[in-house]
């Protein structure tokens, strides 16, 4: 059942929010041992909110179960970003997004698993157990919003997940799990309460089975927030017409079966498309993205030192030793790797060549997209260069191979432009995602095309 229909039925008291909530919570408890989609199940909060709704069924999301990625603060609910360093941490405040959801009657059911701090494309870099792809349990969900996409694919209950994207972490797991997800324009959704990976790249967005549900939830979570200084005052534009679509030719150099699925889907769409080129983006967006992301992340993660929140350090040591000990012990390999790379690229002597250079390349990437959007309403490409790999295959990959997975998704993420992935078909029974990218604040065009498919 689509969310909108479900909400109508809750409001007309045809369906009980409490009953649905109990049902979905039971399902989570049953499957989580196998699937590791959830780091925390917020049972008390969920039932409290559901009861409130049944008493007074109001709001655009009345009674709708929503899972929250574990990098978003929910007051009083354990929030870890899937890292041991934040085990036991209960934020003393709600993220603005969470407040917005609750205000419209949503029922917060739990915190979903992810790569620690968002560092990963397969959700294998988690300290909380690696989530399994419901389509094939021997395969990964993709990341970093793996728990969110995985559970969305598995559950038949009405449900929308809130995911987060820095370099592609909403659309990547959507592609691997066969569900839909949108990463909105940077600044459209408030980041207040989002535990930062990279401040100039992080975005929050919904993951759902249906595009209508994405639109419904985005409508509630978007909007200016005075607490987030990068929050946009403008709203998404009204235009939703999609007349011309550009197929990014550099992204077609993939497995021919994947390419075929994409092309077939485009033909079904009945929309005029032509091949376009993003020469600079295709070559340089990836390194530029990673340098910026890691540089910012290395500063964001400095605060975790055993004081104030999370795992506490020893106080009877000199502070540098105490900090080093707690960080070394509780940060996993990938987290350490990114902190080291990020610290390196902003050190004097390397800063110009890496950090500043990456910022300049970003300008060129944005320009390249803007140029295309003068002519085209949407751009399209496969979401990922592969289908969901087996966990055993992922374990053989080197770090640089992990990073190269993001080659399709880093472009729009770097430019802060909205992009959406929906399922385009199956390759040996494994989902293949097709990704649409629009200009800033053109989300309506994405939904228009997504609903048509």
């Amino acid at each position, binding site marked *: 059942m689509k969310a909108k229909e479900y909400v109508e039925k809750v409001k007309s008291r045809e369906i009980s929010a409490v009953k649905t909530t109990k049902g979905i919570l039971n399902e989570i408890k049953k499957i989580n041992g196998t699937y590791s989609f959830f780091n925390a199940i917020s049972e008390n909060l969920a039932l409290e909110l559901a009861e409130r709704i049944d008493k007074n069924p109001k709001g655009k999301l009345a009674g709708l179960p929503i899972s929250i990625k574990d990098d978003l603060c929910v007051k009083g609910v354990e929030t870890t970003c899937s890292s041991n360093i934040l085990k036991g941490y209960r934020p003393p405040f709600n993220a603005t997004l969470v407040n917005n959801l609750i205000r419209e009657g949503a029922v917060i059911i739990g915190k979903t698993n992810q790569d620690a701090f968002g560092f990963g494309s397969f959700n294998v870099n988690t300290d909380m157990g690696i989530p399994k792809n419901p389509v094939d349990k021997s395969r990964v969900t993709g990341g970093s919003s793996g728990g969110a996409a995985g559970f969305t694919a598995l559950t038949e209950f009405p449900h929308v997940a809130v995911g987060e994207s820095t370099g592609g972490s909403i659309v990547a797991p959507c592609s691997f799990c066969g569900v839909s997800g949108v990463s909105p324009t940077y600044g459209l959704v408030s980041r207040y309460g989002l535990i930062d990976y990279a401040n100039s790249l992080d975005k929050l967005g919904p993951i759902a089975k249906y595009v209508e549900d994405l639109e419904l939830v985005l409508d509630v979570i978007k909007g200016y927030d005075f607490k987030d200084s*990068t929050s946009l005052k403008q709203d998404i534009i009204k235009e939703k017409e999609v007349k011309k679509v550009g197929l990014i030719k550099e992204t077609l150099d993939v497995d021919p079966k994947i390419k075929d699925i994409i092309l077939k889907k485009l033909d079904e769409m009945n929309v005029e498309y032509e091949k376009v080129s993003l020469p600079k983006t295709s070559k340089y967006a990836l390194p530029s993205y990673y340098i910026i992301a890691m540089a910012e992340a290395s500063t964001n993660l400095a605060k975790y030192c055993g004081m104030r929140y999370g795992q506490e*350090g020893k106080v009877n040591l000199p502070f540098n030793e105490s900090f080093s000990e707690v960080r070394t012990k509780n940060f996993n390999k990938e987290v350490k790797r990114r902190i080291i790379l990020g610290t390196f690229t902003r050190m004097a002597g390397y800063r110009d060549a890496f950090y500043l250079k990456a910022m300049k390349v970003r*300008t060129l990437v944005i320009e390249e997209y803007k140029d295309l959007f003068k002519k085209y309403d949407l751009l399209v490409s496969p979401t990922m260069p592969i289908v969901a790999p087996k966990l055993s295959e992922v374990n053989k990959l080197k770090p640089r191979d992990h990073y190269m997975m993001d080659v399709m998704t880093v472009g729009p993420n770097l430019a802060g432009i909205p992009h959406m992935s929906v399922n385009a078909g199956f390759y040996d029974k494994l989902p293949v995602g097709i990704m649409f990218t629009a200009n800033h604040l053109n989300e309506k065009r994405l939904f228009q095309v997504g609903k048509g498919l």
Partner: protein
Amino acid sequence: MKIDRKILQSVASNARLKLSKKEEDELLPQLNEVLEIFSGLNNLKTDGIKPSFQPVEVKNIFREDKVNKCEEDMLQNVKNKEDRYFKGPKAI
């Protein structure tokens, strides 16, 4: 551009991370492979290009100088506290 062991140790120290020799051995080639990808940026000319620190231009965001007291107890997440102070490691 390469990271050698000395640079790695200096960076790790700066980031308050302790690496064992085994970890250093493992990391060095991995880091240098990634650096190779990063160094690909040198092939793109960016003379005269302004850096974009944010993808969407926002400017002049302020708040009024008003006091709003936070009612939450910021010490609720720690055991290391003493008389309303956060307790921390030796700092001299």
